[in-house]
């Protein structure tokens, strides 16, 4: 199998990597770039644990080929905090106990940030539908929705 040489931007940093043509962006992030914040919960786009943004669009990185990252801009959970400043969503998720095991949390945070960038004042229903592709098996989603609302209010007043 011929490997591909890919140049991309991840969390604002230029990155180059070699990958097989059948490797997914999730494989590349985790195995080639050592960014293990995105998780493989299903590999088929059903759980959202691997959520990242690709050129500003929220996607499942398991449904993107690594090769497609060439020339693209990717944002992952690792780029969400700036230095030691957590993003408001990250801080509120901790404060409001919006995670239990935490394995779905990176995907949910990436997805939620994408939501609030488009809709700074979502209803509970809008949050729930936006996050329908992010499975969480621990929380029953209640504290997640509440945390998103609290973070959104704080971001609006900032």
């Amino acid at each position, binding site marked *: 199998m011929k490997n591909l040489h890919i140049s991309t931007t991840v969390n604002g940093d230029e990155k180059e990597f070699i990958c097989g043509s059948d490797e997914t962006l999730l494989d590349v992030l985790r195995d080639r770039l050592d960014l293990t914040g*995105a998780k493989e919960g299903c590999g*088929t786009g059903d759980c959202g644990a691997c959520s990242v943004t690709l050129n500003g669009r929220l996607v499942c990185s398991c449904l993107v080929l690594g090769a497609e990252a060439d020339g693209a801009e990717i944002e992952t959970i690792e780029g969400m905090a700036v230095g030691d400043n957590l993003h408001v969503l990250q801080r509120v998720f*901790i404060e409001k106990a919006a995670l*239990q*095991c935490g*394995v779905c949390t*990176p995907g949910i945070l990436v997805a939620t940030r994408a939501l609030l960038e488009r809709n700074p004042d979502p209803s*509970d229903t809008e949050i729930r539908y936006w996050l*329908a592709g992010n499975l969480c*098996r621990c929380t029953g989603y209640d504290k997640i929705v509440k945390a998103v609302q609290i973070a959104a209010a704080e971001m609006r007043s900032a």
Partner: protein
Amino acid sequence: MALDSDAQRDFKIVGTRVTRPDGVDKVTGKARYGADISAPGMLHGRILRSPHAHARILSIDTTGAMALKGVKAIVTSADLSRPEDNFFADIGDNCLANEKALYDGHAVAAVAATDKATAKAALRLIKVDYEVLPHVTDVDAAMAPDAPVVHEGRADETVAEGYSQNVTSHFEFGHGDLEAGFAKADKIIERSFKTAATHQGYIEPHACLASLGADGRGELWCCTQGQFNVRTMCAELLGIQASQLRVTASEIGGGFGGKTTVFIEPVALALSRKAGKPVKITMSRDEVFRATGPTISSSMDVKIGMTSDGRITAGKANLRYQGGAYPNGTVEFGAQSAFAAYDLAAVQTLGWNVMTNRPKEAAYRAPGAPVAIYAIESVVDELCQNFGLDPLDVRIKNAARKGTLSSYGPTFNDIGLVATLEAAKAHPHYSAPLGVNQGRGLSCGFWFNFGGNTSVSLHLNSDGTIGVVEGNPDIGGSRASISMMAAEELGISYDKVRTVITDTNSIGFNDVTDGSRVTFAVGLATIKAARAAIKEMCSRVAKIWGIDEEAVIWEDGAAKPSGPNAGDFDPMTLADIAAVADNTGGPIAGHHEGNADGAGVSFGVHLVDLEVDPETGMTTVLRYTVFQDAGKAVHPDYVEGQMQGGAVQGIGWALNEEYIYGEDGRLQNPGFLDYRVPVASDLPPIETVILEIPNPGHPYGVRGVGETPIVPPLAAISNAVSRATGVRMAELPMSPPRILKATSAKV
């Protein structure tokens, strides 16, 4: 200082909502879960799985695969030890099939190669010659005398003659004269129920990184609910000494009982030993569904009698559970808990454990209880409807309370069921109006909880801070609760404590994180460890002050003279004492090792409003409230989280989740697309009401809370659907096609 129960004390930290210590790691992607680690020179392992539900393995030819460049090792069951104890032998056989493949997805061989693609290619070059055998996946079919037999000779002495050999054990519980009880009833309802198998559905697939040398020394990193149990099982199956295998638990992405055993870990160790290199295995989601440990499916008959004023006169249940391809003990817990919420003069439950050609069952949150209680609570609800009685009043009237002879044998101590029912009755949810096609359902739930083996070590640092070392993986925020209890007991602030979860070689044995035991048992051990440290601190201070140890007391985080007669000394804080520890005898620590009992059973009540679309059978949950006795809620956020998460898993069980097998015995829905766990948009807020009826078996009154909340939703939803549609539902899940079929039959 006596280890008294002082649950009525004024807590300073326990009961507050502090932030969890692992929060930052988990919101930034830094936390390392099972699949998030690698080792230099690491190989990638993959497992070849049976495409047949039941087949004799005639031969396995690995020569072609071994010849592939990059393949470093292939293992089969011949590479694992065969322990004499059936418990371990079955686990080994489940990890790599021995003579027969017993279910679709059963592991048959495994390969380790230099990269994932090579491992995948190698699997296709392994030639397995199967003789396909007849299979059985349904519990009732498996009990028939002429059913295909999964394993011969595994029935124990409790099974009567005339059953298939698939029936491995039988249980009976209860007391009183059933016949006399039923004779007193004004109405007797008998119904049969079926429930589908469900899966814990943790988002993180199993993953491990193993390294085992020719000298029998090994390291294992894996996601598990219990690293010590993993060590015990792996040491048995690899034929190595427990002390030589160090197991480190990664962060764990959900377990719910499903990560209390091993599937890939012994395989990775065997591959590593053979290849002489570290081996990583991660399961795909398909493998998780086909070949880990889903829960039982069941078939049940229930008969309950009631007087017209709502007194239950007798109850009887026959429970048949299949737990997959090996003998399993789950029906006993269903049989014991079925009628636990009721004070009954006559009650009997009979249970049968059954084998089928399905994956070996693992624990799932209150194993055995949800389906049994679903059946009982459905019939109680139907009796209430029959007499036009309020279902909460009837439950209060018949509720088990202190002094009630329980349906499983002992007499209840302090329990919180009546208080919980009364809280539900008083809640605005219970009197809120309902609309067209809407129904309200409720159910009680129960779980035993337990304590178990626990080791905790606690040490003072010279800056007056505390390290707590424990051995139970943190699934839902337990590091916070443990730190809180240490801080509470020592009288210092929460941020002065850091709790870490360590590997098998760094602390004494700990049972698995299960049975809702961690906050109870690890908390108990932490309190005792803190008390040991306090004793040592008081002794040091006594020396400093030159007075008797007994004359020093510990109060508000400081040693003080016990009274005017003890002398006039300024209190010494923990930090003061820690600062001079070098001079007063060296490091100060406390530890506790014990097997905790006295966990205290817990009850919950769930209320649900929902609407059923009469044209499509679609159920929409509109409002949901959970009431539960937590004993003492150490961290209320995480107690609520357990109540909410358990409720939603139960909602999934009730409405859509199921293992679907085809005629060929193969699992048809091994993915999150068609194994339908609830998504965020399916659900309303899950309201919670925590009651605190202290458990006398814990110094702070703590009861386990994690398991009980999955018990009531099945019946609560079913009762609400039945009331909304006017048709009594008796099969789970209540998927739209099933509801529409039932309601169509009505007209």
